[in-house]
């Protein structure tokens, strides 16, 4: 189930909210969240719910063993390592086995990727590793651990919520009206980012990349790359907004996952603002344990390369994702060791342009899984080909409307809201509420429009 579906909006969200608040007891409320989370996951993947339950069970048993071996470091380490390997093996089989075997020329049956497996595996790993490090306490209630793993707001698209973040709130949290109304507004904002902006700018990239004509030249491909750059931000940050908002509605406070990444003035800054839960996860669970910057420059370079190669393939089992990770490793190393200090002296606009140029090109690497298509796109972007815009529009006029969303998206990815002065008192409240209700109505209208399916042979 996805948040931007009628099923979620008209069935799941109101039902879970009403039942949650009808229950007065914490255990019952957690029970409601757990049951709905399992329904949420099984809605799209009835079979793979077993995999989720199994992964949570592995973490549960592993956690109990690690806790029991608190005074026996070797056993504790072994328990942690075995649990982590089992979890990663699970991820490897479902996500990477086909890719690896395919590249080795070994034929294997196609395995369907379970939704959210990368997110929930990393969440579970954070629990196991933090427990081993003594940063968190063992969870002796399997159902509560399962709730942490399967909690529907962040289950399929993050943010990667660490057990530490929600440990206390799982057992005792206090819901309040401010969180509920603020959370709902955040959810509506995220929904609008996804439905009104991401889905529409996505069409620009899709139409141009899918165009078979010679009409699409350099300008068109740059527009497509910009559209995808905006699409991925609004899609992903929209989902994070919805997750964070729904968490708040039920008394959970997840950490922010995006902080206006497209205002960054360097690649380093970009990664401090983009998918924060993933970059900090790799920092804390891979980069620092590998030695970080504490073991000399050569080792730091190696560590950065490892982390970014892993970051790349975490996003998908394909060569372009690996290339995308390595691309960022190179850029970050160059900033750190070569031109970072000179970059800081440039005017802000040039630094921003530099960062966005490379981020934009990076998303082309990320987007185009097919190597031939990627090579073609990069060639057209960097070797001038004229664009026959009339031909482009004539072959798919939907592009004309979708292009209108680009400037809206550009404005919305800037921190404009922060600069708006809120109107105090009742008039401000009325404007805000009308705004959010209107936004929700607009989202529903856009979602409904995708189900338009006229039957031309009936009763006309």
């Amino acid at each position, binding site marked *: 189930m996805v948040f931007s579906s009628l099923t979620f909006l008209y069935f799941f969200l109101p039902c879970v909210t009403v039942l949650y608040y009808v229950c007065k007891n914490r255990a019952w409320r957690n029970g409601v969240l757990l049951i709905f989370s399992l329904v949420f996951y099984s809605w799209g993947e009835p079979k793979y719910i077993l995999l989720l339950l199994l992964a949570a069970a592995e973490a549960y048993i592993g956690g109990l063993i690690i806790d029991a071996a608190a005074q026996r470091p070797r056993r504790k380490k072994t328990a942690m390592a075995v649990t982590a390997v089992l979890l990663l093996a699970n991820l490897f089989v479902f996500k990477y086995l086909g890719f690896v075997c395919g590249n080795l020329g070994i034929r294997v049956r196609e395995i369907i990727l379970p939704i959210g497996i990368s997110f929930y595996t990393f969440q579970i790993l954070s629990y196991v590793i933090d427990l081993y490090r003594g940063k968190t306490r063992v969870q002796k209630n399997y159902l509560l651990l399962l709730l942490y793993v399967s909690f529907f707001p962040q289950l399929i698209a993050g943010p990667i919520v660490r057990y530490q973040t929600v440990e206390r709130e799982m057992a005792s949290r206090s819901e309040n*009206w401010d969180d509920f109304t603020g959370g709902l507004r955040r959810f509506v904002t995220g929904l609008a980012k996804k439905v009104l902006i991401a889905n529409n700018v996505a069409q620009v990239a899709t139409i141009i990349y899918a165009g078979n004509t010679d009409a699409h030249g350099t300008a068109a491909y740059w527009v497509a790359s910009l559209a995808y750059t905006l699409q991925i931000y609004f899609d992903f940050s929209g989902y994070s907004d919805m997750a964070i908002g729904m968490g708040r509605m039920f008394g959970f406070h997840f950490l922010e996952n995006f902080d206006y990444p497209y205002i960054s003035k360097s690649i380093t800054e970009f990664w401090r603002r983009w998918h924060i839960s993933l970059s900090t996860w790799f920092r804390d669970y891979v980069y620092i344990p590998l030695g970080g910057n504490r073991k000399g420059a050569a080792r730091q370079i190696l560590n950065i390369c490892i982390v970014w190669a892993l970051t790349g393939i975490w996003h998908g089992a394909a060569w372009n994702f690996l290339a995308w990770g390595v691309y960022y490793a190179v850029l970050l190393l160059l900033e750190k060791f070569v031109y970072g200090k000179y970059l800081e002296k440039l005017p802000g606009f040039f630094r921003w342009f530099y960062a966005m140029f490379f981020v934009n090109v990076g998303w082309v690497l990320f987007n185009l899984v097919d190597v031939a298509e990627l090579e073609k796109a990069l060639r057209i972007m960097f070797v001038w080909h004229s664009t026959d815009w009339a031909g482009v529009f004539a072959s798919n006029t939907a592009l004309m409307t979708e292009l209108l969303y680009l400037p809206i998206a550009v404005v919305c990815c800037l921190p404009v809201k922060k600069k708006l002065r809120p109107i105090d008192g009742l008039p401000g409240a009325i404007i805000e509420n009308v705004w959010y209700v209107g936004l929700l109505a607009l989202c529903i209208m856009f979602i409904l429009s995708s189900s338009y399916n006229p039957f031309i042979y009936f009763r006309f």
Partner: protein
Amino acid sequence: MKKFLDRAVAVGIILFLLLGLFWMYLRPDKINTYENRYANQAPRLTAASYLDGSFQDGFDLALADQIPFSQRGKRTYNEKSTALLRAELKPLLERERYKYVSFGTDWIYNDYLVYKPQTLDDTLKGELDAKITNINNCIAAHPELKFYAYYVKRDMDVDFETGMQTGEAEYLEQGLDLASGSFSCLNIGDFAAYSKNFYKTDHHWNAQGSYEGYREAAALLGVSENELLVPTGEADTGRQLSGSKAASSRATSVITEPFSVLTFDYPAEDVTINGKKASAYGKEDTFLADTAQKASYANYYGEDYGEIIFDTHRTDRDNILVIGDSYDNAVLRLLSAHFNKTFSVDLRNYQTQTGKPFRLSEYVKANGITKVLLIGGSSFYSKPDFTLEG
């Protein structure tokens, strides 16, 4: 007060959404009038339907049809987005008037919503061959019957930019074992001919096109020129048509055209639809006076019923069986004037609407039929929905 308003709105949103769910179960619509089809209903939950995902799919589809304001929401979205697209397209359409310009799921050529021409490739040839074999088997099995075929050429049969023909009609003519002079087609060779005979917003032929089709089909069946019904006039119904192509391109009521009709003095006849006596087929007799009637091809000429029987009680004439698609709706009444009984069968709907399968041998024998006219467009001659049995 601010906090109270915030809370009331938040609770109101949740309750409104919940109301949508209850609405689906308590007040379901049977018909989705905007999309011209039966409305999806809430599916029944079973373990099997949940595991195979059909319950989930059906649930989402049902919500899309049943939640409050769903049809209004879709209509508003379509009207606004299409109006915007039209405004954006205006300069392009003027510049590229004689080129295909994409529009929704269809194309615009010189202000007409059109389909792009098909290619007579192996797939289409395979479909046509199957249909040709099917028809030829029927012809061979019934030497006592005279078979005729009329093909309605339209936008899918000619490329308006190049003038190239798909060649489907010619392929059929070559393949069918019909007696000489028993095959004919509406000859659309260019855009001028197309625009004269077809609607701008609908896939059907217009009043002129269908009358031309009637004249040619009647000639095929041996009706002489002086026997043909002649229009008593051409009338602008004062209503705007926004047909099937507009609907599929989300342009219903955004792209419209005048709905003009030809009027005729039809001979008296009895009409039976799916076994029940009817006052008439279609609304040709009452449409002009009844201004509440909506402009649409099927509303005016008649719908795609499984079986329609016209009886002029002229027992000195032949009984004819007309098997076709919706193109025959506009010519059935005209053709029936030349026969004793005219039996019209739409193979897509015959069994579901009459409760029995259609078997040609039994049908022609039971009804004393001597002539069989096959009439339709590309789909009729290529899709398995129209396959004859026996």
